[in-house]
C-alpha cells in the first residue's frame, strides 16, 4: 500500500456542500415537469377486513381527476405479489386488507387537493374482521390467519430456509446452536437472565418518500426520480411491476434527504409509474409525514429473552436467547432483521456454547423492517444490559468483564466465521481499553448536581460489514473517466443519502491519483442508465465494497496514465512518479507530462479515452439453515460511554455526555466519520429514551411530529468522538465502515448509566420518564 496524497484522511467538506447551504440542492420533491399530475393513495380503513366492493365513480367524475386505479383496472403484472424477502403483498389490495397501510386505489389529479378529495370520495364496502395484533395472539392456536395463502408464497433464496410454509401466522423461525448450553449452565458460577423489549421506531428522514415518474410514449421508456440510496434495487423491483425490460426503465436519484434504513423498499414509486403510463403525463407523488408513520415500515420491535452464564473469573460460558418479533402484515425485512440480530447476539465476545432461537410472526399491524443497525441495536440493548448486571454479580469491573471475553484474532464467531487477522481484524478490546480513560475522565470532571442522580454506563457492540447475507456476492463497481484536461469523472451507482458516500469515494480515487479533490467530479444523480450496478447504501457496505472498487478504479487509472506517459517519454514506468496531476520522471526535474497532456495524447494518438472500471466482489456467502456461515467482510467495533442525570422525582433522564469510541479502520474523511458517530449517538439516545411509534388496534396512535418525540437541540448531550484506526487488511486504505455502529450500544450504555445512578435495571425501551418513575416509586 502506498500513501495517498493529501486527500485520504482529509477533512474535506461534502461535495454537495455549496448546493446544500445555498438551498439549491434539488431533492425529488423539488422536481417539476410540465403538465405534471399529483398522486394520492387510498388506504384501508381497517386493519383486517374483507373488501366487498370499491366504488370510485364519484372520484372519477370529479373535475381535475385524471385517473383512479384499483386492482380491477391495474394490469396483471402490477397485481403480482411483491416483497423483498417474501412475496406476500399486493400493491393494490383487492379481496382482503391486512393492515391500515394496504392501498386500495390510487388517484392522479391536477393538484394534490383534488387528488386527496378524490381519494376521500372513493367508497369502500368492508366486512370487518377481528385483527391479530400481538405476537401472542398470532401464535395462539386457532388464531385468525393474516395470510391464508402463505404456504404458496414465493421467497427469496436467502430467507427460504427460515420461512414457515405451514398454515399459521409464523413468517420465519431460526435456530443457531453451538456446543452444549445445558452442560455449560451446570458449570456456570453465575447466570444472569432477563427479558428485554424494544419498541417500534420511525426513521423520520427529514425528507419523506417522494417519486416523480415520466413515461416517454415515443421512446417507450419510463423514468422515475425517487428518494433512495439503492437505485438498482429499485430498478430490479420496479421493471417487472410495470411489465418493462430493465433497459426501458430508468431510476434517477437526485439529492436524498436521509434514509436510516427506511428507503430501501418501493413506496410511492410503482404507483406514480403506473399512473404516468396510464395518463401519459408526468406524475409526482410522495408520502405526507403521517403516511411516513403508517405506510413506511418501522424499526422492528424485539422481545428478547436472554440468559448468560459465566465462570467465576468472568469468562462467558454460554448464551441462550430467544428473539420474538412482529413484522406486521408484510415481511419487508423484519425476518432478515431478526436473522441479522441473531448473528450479532453474542456481541464481539467469545461464547463457546450458544443456543439462539427466533420467531417472526405476521399480524395485522403495519409493517416493520429495517432501521440503521438492522437488529444489532436491539440485541445489544439486551446483551450489554445483562453484561452490566453480570459484572455487578461477579464483582468485576464492567469494562474488564468485556475485555476478558473480547474477540481476539483467530476466534470463531457463533455463526462459524473465523476472525482471520489477515482478512477481518479484531479490535473490540482496543475500544474497551480506550473507554477506560473516558470513564475516568467522566468520573473525575463532573460535579454532583443537587437533587439529581448521576451515573455512568458503558456498552459495546459490533456490526458486520457487507450485504452478503442478502446478495450472495456483494458487488461494487466504480468507473473513472479521464477528461481532456486531465480532470476525472467518477461514476458510481451507490446512493448518497447524506452519509457522504460521494465525497469519500472521490477522496479515495483522488488519493490513488494524487489529485486535488477539485479535479474530480462524482455523478451527483445516480442514474441507472449510466451508473454501474451497485448493491446500494445499506449493510455498512458502501465504503468497504464500493470504496474498494473506487480504489481499484483509481489504481487502474493511475497505472494506465503511467503506461501512456512511459510510452510518450520513453521511460520505464518504474521510473515514473505521479504527483500534482502530472507524471514526473524520477531524478529528472522538469521532465513531466500533465494528466491533460497524457489524456490528449491518448485520445489523439492512441485513439483511446482512458476509462477504468474498478471492481470489488466479496466472497459468495450464505447463511445455511442452521445460521452457520461466514457472512461478513469485516466488523466495525464500538464502545459507548454514557453519562446521565436522573431526576428521581419525575423519572426523567437527561444524557449529559456521550462518548463514542469506534474503530473505523481508516477515517477516509474524519469529519464525515465524526458526523456519523454523533448522528448515531443522538439517534441512539432517541431509541433509548424518547421515541416510540404507538400502535392500538392496528392503528398508529401518534402519526404526527408533535406526538412523536425526536431528539431536539436541547436533548443533544456533549458528544465526544474517539476514532480508532486499525487498518483492515482488505478495506480501501484500511477503511471499514462508520454509519451503523455508533448507534448500536447507546441504549444499553444509557440503561447501564441509569442503573448506576438509581439502582434500577430498565429492560424496556424507550426508558421514558414515566416508566423509570414507576420503577423508582416501586423501590427499584
Amino acid at each position, binding site marked *: 500500500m502506498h500513501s495517498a496524497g493529501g486527500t485520504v484522511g482529509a477533512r474535506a467538506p461534502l461535495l454537495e456542500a455549496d448546493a446544500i447551504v445555498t438551498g439549491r440542492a434539488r431533492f425529488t420533491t423539488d422536481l417539476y415537469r410540465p403538465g405534471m399530475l399529483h398522486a394520492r393513495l387510498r388506504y384501508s380503513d381497517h386493519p383486517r377486513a374483507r373488501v366487498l366492493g370499491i366504488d370510485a365513480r364519484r372520484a372519477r367524475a370529479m373535475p381535475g381527476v385524471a385517473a383512479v386505479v384499483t386492482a380491477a383496472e391495474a394490469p396483471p403484472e402490477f397485481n403480482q405479489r411483491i416483497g423483498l424477502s417474501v412475496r406476500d403483498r399486493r400493491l393494490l389490495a383487492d379481496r382482503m386488507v391486512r393492515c391500515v397501510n394496504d392501498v386500495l386505489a390510487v388517484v392522479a389529479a391536477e393538484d394534490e387537493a383534488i387528488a386527496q378529495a378524490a381519494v376521500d370520495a372513493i367508497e369502500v364496502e368492508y366486512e370487518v374482521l377481528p385483527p391479530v395484533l400481538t405476537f401472542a395472539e398470532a401464535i395462539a392456536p386457532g388464531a385468525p390467519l393474516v395470510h391464508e395463502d402463505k404456504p404458496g408464497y414465493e421467497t427469496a433464496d436467502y430467507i427460504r430456509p427460515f420461512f414457515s410454509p405451514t398454515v399459521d401466522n409464523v413468517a420465519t423461525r431460526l435456530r443457531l446452536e453451538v456446543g452444549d448450553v445445558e452442560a455449560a449452565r451446570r458449570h456456570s458460577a453465575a447466570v444472569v437472565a432477563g427479558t428485554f423489549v424494544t419498541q417500534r421506531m420511525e426513521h423520520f428522514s427529514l425528507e419523506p418518500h417522494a417519486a416523480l415518474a415520466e413515461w416517454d410514449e415515443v421512446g417507450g421508456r419510463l423514468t422515475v426520480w425517487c428518494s433512495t440510496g439503492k437505485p438498482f434495487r429499485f430498478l430490479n423491483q420496479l421493471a417487472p411491476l410495470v411489465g418493462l425490460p430493465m433497459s426501458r426503465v430508468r431510476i434517477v436519484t437526485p439529492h436524498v434527504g436521509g434514509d436510516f434504513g427506511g428507503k430501501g423498499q418501493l413506496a410511492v414509486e410503482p404507483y406514480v409509474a403506473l399512473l404516468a403510463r396510464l395518463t401519459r403525463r408526468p406524475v409526482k407523488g410522495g408520502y405526507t409525514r403521517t403516511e411516513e408513520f403508517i405506510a413506511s415500515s418501522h424499526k422492528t420491535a424485539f422481545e428478547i429473552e436472554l440468559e448468560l452464564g459465566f465462570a467465576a473469573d468472568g469468562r462467558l460460558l454460554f448464551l441462550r436467547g430467544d428473539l420474538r418479533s412482529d413484522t406486521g402484515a408484510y415481511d419487508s425485512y423484519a425476518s432478515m432483521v431478526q436473522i441479522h440480530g441473531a448473528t450479532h447476539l453474542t456481541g464481539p465476545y467469545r461464547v463457546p456454547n450458544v443456543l439462539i432461537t427466533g420467531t417472526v410472526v405476521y399480524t395485522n399491524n403495519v409493517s416493520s423492517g429495517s432501521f440503521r443497525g438492522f437488529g444489532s441495536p436491539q440485541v445489544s440493548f439486551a446483551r450489554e444490559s445483562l453484561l452490566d448486571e453480570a459484572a455487578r454479580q461477579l464483582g468485576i469491573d464492567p469494562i474488564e468483564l468485556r475485555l476478558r471475553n473480547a474477540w481476539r484474532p483467530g476466534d470463531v464467531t457463533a455463526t462459524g466465521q473465523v476472525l482471520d487477522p489477515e482478512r477481518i481484524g479484531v479490535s473490540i478490546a482496543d475500544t474497551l481499553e480506550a473507554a477506560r480513560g473516558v470513564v475516568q475522565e467522566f468520573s473525575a470532571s463532573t460535579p454532583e448536581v443537587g437533587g439529581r442522580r448521576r451515573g455512568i454506563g458503558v456498552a459495546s457492540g459490533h456490526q458486520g460489514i457487507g450485504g452478503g447475507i442478502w446478495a450472495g456476492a456483494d458487488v461494487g463497481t466504480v468507473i473513472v473517466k479521464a477528461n481532456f484536461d486531465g480532470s476525472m469523472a467518477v461514476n458510481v451507482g451507490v446512493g448518497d443519502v447524506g452519509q457522504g458516500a460521494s465525497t469519500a469515494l472521490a477522496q479515495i480515487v483522488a488519493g490513488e491519483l494524487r489529485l486535488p479533490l477539485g479535479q474530480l467530479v462524482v455523478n451527483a444523480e445516480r442514474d441507472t442508465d449510466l451508473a454501474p450496478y451497485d448493491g446500494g447504501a445499506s449493510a455498512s457496505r458502501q465504503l468497504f465494497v464500493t470504496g474498494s472498487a473506487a480504489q481499484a478504479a483509481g489504481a487502474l487509472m493511475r497505472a494506465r496514465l503511467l503506461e501512456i506517459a512511459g510510452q510518450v517519454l520513453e521511460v520505464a514506468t518504474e521510473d515514473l512518479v505521479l504527483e500534482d496531476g502530472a507524471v514526473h520522471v524520477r531524478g529528472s526535474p522538469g521532465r513531466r507530462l500533465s494528466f491533460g497532456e497524457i489524456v490528449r495524447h491518448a485520445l489523439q494518438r492512441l485513439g483511446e479515452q482512458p476509462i477504468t472500471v474498478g471492481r470489488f466482489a466479496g466472497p459468495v456467502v450464505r447463511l445455511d439453515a442452521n445460521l452457520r456461515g461466514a457472512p461478513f467482510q469485516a466488523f466495525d467495533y464500538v464502545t459507548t460511554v454514557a453519562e446521565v442525570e436522573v431526576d428521581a422525582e419525575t423519572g426523567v433522564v437527561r444524557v449529559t455526555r456521550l462518548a463514542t469510541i469506534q474503530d473505523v479502520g481508516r477515517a477516509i474523511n474524519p469529519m464525515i466519520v465524526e458526523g456519523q458517530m454523533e448522528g448515531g449517538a443522538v439517534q441512539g439516545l432517541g431509541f433509548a429514551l424518547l421515541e416510540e411509534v404507538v400502535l392500538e388496534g392496528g392503528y398508529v*396512535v401518534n402519526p404526527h411530529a408533535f406526538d412523536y418525540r425526536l431528539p431536539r437541540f436541547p436533548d443533544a448531550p456533549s458528544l465526544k468522538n474517539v476514532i480508532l484506526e486499525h487498518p483492515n487488511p482488505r478495506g480501501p486504505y484500511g477503511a471499514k465502515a462508520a454509519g451503523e455502529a455508533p448507534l448500536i450500544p447507546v441504549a444499553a450504555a444509557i440503561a447501564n448509566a441509569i442503573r448506576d445512578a438509581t439502582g434500577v435495571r430498565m429492560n424496556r425501551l424507550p426508558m421514558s420518564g*414515566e416508566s423509570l418513575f*414507576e420503577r423508582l416509586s416501586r423501590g427499584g
Partner: protein
Amino acid sequence: MIRVLHRPGSLEEALELIGCRENRRVYAGGTELLLLVKLGLAQVRELVDLKRLGLDGIARDGTVVIVGACATHAAIARSRPVRAFIPVLAATAGELGNVRVRATGTIGGNLCFADPSSDVGCVLLLEDAEVELRSRRGTRRVEIGRFFVHAFSTVLADDELLVAVRVPVPSRTRRRVTRYRRIALGERPTAGAGVSLELDAGGRIVRARVAVGAGNPHPIRIDEAEAHLQGQDLATAREGAEDVGRLAATACEPIGDVHASPGYKRHLVGVMARRALEDVVVELEATRG
C-alpha cells in the same frame, strides 16, 4: 377549504363579520387554526383576519398592563412593561412552543383555543388577569378563571372577540414573586403548575395563588393549597411545600396522552407545584429586606 379571506380594518367591521355564519372563523397568527384545517379537524370556508385591527399593542395603563389580543408571544416576551411588571408572563411567552410559533402565535389565539397544555392561561390565573370580550352587544370583562370552561372550550360567545388581556400590576409596597414550572415530555407541555406569593411588611403571606396549567383540561386555581399558604411565613410555607404539591396533584384531572398517563401527569403536576413554591420561597428570601 378556505374560500374567502376577510380583512377587516376596524374592530366594528370585524365584529360585524363574525358570528353570523357557520364555517367562518377568526384568526391572527394561525398557528392553531391553520394546523386544525390542515389536519382536517376544522372545516373553515371563510377566515377573518384580525391582524389589521390594531389589537397588538402592549401598554401599562395605571394599575394594569393591557396586552392586545393580537400581541405575539415574541412581542410579549420582549415587552418592557410585561418584563418589568409581570416577568413570569414574559418568561412563559418566551419559552412557549418554538421560535416560529412565538413569532406568529398570539396571546388571544392561545387563550381562545384553550389547548389543555397551554401555560399562558395558568400564568394569567396566578396574576389575577382578566380578559376583555367585545361584541356588537357591548364589552364585558371576565376573570381569566371564569373564561375557560373545559379543554378547547371557553365562555366566548359566537359573536364575541377577545380583544385584550388585562393584568394587574402588583403593588409596589408589597413583595410578590410568581413562578411557573413545567415539564414537556413531548412537543407540548405535559404538566405545569405555578405559585404566586405576596408578602406584607412583616413577611406574612397576604396573597397566595397556586394554579395548574398543563395537566388539567384547563387552567385551575387550587383553593385548598392557597388557603394552606395564606397568612404563613416563608419558613412555614416551605415546610408545607409537599402538601401544596399534593393538593395540586389531587385537584387536577389530567387527560392521558402518548407521553404520559393521567396518573403520571398528576404526579408531575404535584412535583411542578412544589418546585414552583420552592422557587418562589428562594426568590423571596433572596430579596428580603
